[in-house]
């Protein structure tokens, strides 16, 4: 295993340790709730990062996939009495299919048509959720969604859900990392750098882009299902186009193309508006301003900043030796 591979394991182990210790230090259940939302965002943004960072395509529709996962899970369990786990699986399958249908026609084209299509898609999904109130509850939301259960034990409490959410998030990171450091992952990164050269050595560029898009949509769908079963209620604004922009913001702030980018972005941006209520009022200024400054001056995001600081320290250490 190479040095980077070993470094990843240390970093993942450190994060897992932090995750294990955090509940001991967090007394306030509301803060635990914030950490739970953070875990879900880590999951969505990690998937989004695979698409943005490795394939170079942007989706402005991931909130819609997140929302579809949540609503399908909610409707199947609450209205149709399905088992939540089965509903989660079904939601992921439906979302994968939808992503496939959007991805196939748009990703074979050069240029970023995906961002346009996903933008339109997210707007359509929001309007449909609002208008089909017979099934979705409309603007007031859909409630009465049962919690997930493991061997009869309900995961409704903040504490119980915490373990589930963070286990899933860490697993999502691990799987993403496995993908990035593999034949397929190299192919994806290669096609980001030069699509013609990647194709010339056998990388099926269009198929890979579609597959990674579908994969990232599945990440969002799973997170959405978890969200629905955790809160028990879902409402349309959680999944509108501005939520998609926030997700992309987390990805870019964290550092696109860096595995830890999704974690950094979600960890940094999730708690601030939730913990500090003043930010609710200034949310747009806050998100817009941070993203603007980072994109202008630090396009590699927080993960890039971290790597640069580490690099500078290593260089200083090297000079000293």
């Amino acid at each position, binding site marked *: 295993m190479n040095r980077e591979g070993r470094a990843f394991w240390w970093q993942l182990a450190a994060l897992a340790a932090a995750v294990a210790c955090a509940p001991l230090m967090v007394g306030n259940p509301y803060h635990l709730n914030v950490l739970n939302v953070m875990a879900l965002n880590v999951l969505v943004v990690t998937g989004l990062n695979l698409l943005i960072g490795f394939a170079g395509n942007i989706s402005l529709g991931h909130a819609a996939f997140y929302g579809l996962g949540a609503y399908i899970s909610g409707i199947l369990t609450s209205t149709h009495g399905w088992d939540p786990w089965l509903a989660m699986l079904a939601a992921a399958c439906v979302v994968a299919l939808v992503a496939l249908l959007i991805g196939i026609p748009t990703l074979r084209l050069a240029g970023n048509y995906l961002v346009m299509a996903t933008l339109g898609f997210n707007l359509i999904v929001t309007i449909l959720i609002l208008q089909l109130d017979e099934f979705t509850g409309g603007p007031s939301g859909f409630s009465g969604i049962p919690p997930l259960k493991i061997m009869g034990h309900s995961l409704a409490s903040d504490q119980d859900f915490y373990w589930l959410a963070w286990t899933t998030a860490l697993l999502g990171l691990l799987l993403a990392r496995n993908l990035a450091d593999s034949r397929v992952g190299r192919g994806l990164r290669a096609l980001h750098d030069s699509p013609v050269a990647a*194709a010339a050595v056998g990388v099926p560029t269009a198929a890979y882009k579609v597959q990674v898009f579908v994969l990232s949509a599945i990440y969002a769908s799973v997170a959405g299902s978890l969200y629905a079963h955790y809160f028990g209620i879902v409402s349309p604004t959680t999944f509108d186009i501005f939520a998609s922009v926030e997700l992309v913001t987390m990805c870019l702030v964290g550092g696109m193309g860096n595995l830890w980018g999704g974690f950094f972005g979600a960890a940094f941006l999730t708690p601030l508006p939730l913990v500090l209520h003043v930010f609710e009022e200034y949310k747009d200024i806050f998100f817009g301003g941070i993203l603007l400054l980072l994109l202008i001056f630090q396009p590699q995001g927080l993960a890039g900043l971290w790597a640069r600081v580490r690099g500078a320290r290593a260089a200083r250490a090297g000079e000293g030796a």
Partner: protein
Amino acid sequence: MPETLLSVRDLDMSFGGVQALSQVSFAVPAGRITAVIGPNGAGKTTAINCISGVYRPRGGRVVFNGHTINGQAPHVLARQGLTRTFQNLQVFANLSVLENVMVGLHAVTGRGFVSAMLRLPAQRAEERRIRQQAREALEFLGLQDSASLPAGQLSYGDRKRVELARALVAKPKLVLLDEPVAGLNPAETEDMGQALLAVRQQGVTLVLVEHDMSLVMRVSDQVVVLHFGRKIAQGDPQSIQRHPEVLRTYLGGRDEPIPGLDMDPAPPQEAARA
């Protein structure tokens, strides 16, 4: 005469009314080096792009290894053993040198998303094989010391060699080389010439588009001359050097073409101005 690996028949290509190739035909014998030469704007890169599937030719046929391959996608051709390098370097700048060459094995490996994410045993075995073969290819071209560097940081000459290693690592039948020594200094050019002959030794068929006449005359078994999108001559290097039409339109009278300024497939008058 060895069997024909690639044959191009009556190839036609045009861009917005400019005829870039018309009725171009030639055959590439297996295991040999064929050079395609011609002044700027002659249609050389267009020919490479038509053969490698980047463009779909307007007319004619490209037959590779017994199959017509017109309009087949580049990644499909790569699986059949046809790959290429690029005139304007196309290394994967954000990947390490080793990873660049590992990507070169894409066509001959097959593990997908699921087995990569789950690290299945078959995937790990394949990964080890990919790494091993890529290292061997780097050693073949003397790049083993820069294996872990990001490819974007290498010198121009080294990046050219990374491209060649990436093209060769999967042991393709045919490699199309678009100006392999453009921009290289004489020593690097000499090294590249040696490398090409060594590749030929291994039985790989090469087609190169090149402006460096001394290299072309030294390494190639066969030379095809294009001019204004038409083939004007074909033969071994010695006969091409004496070919009257080649002398008249290309080698004779005019200055040596300047490497790296090929405006192909720009219309000839524009290229002349440049």
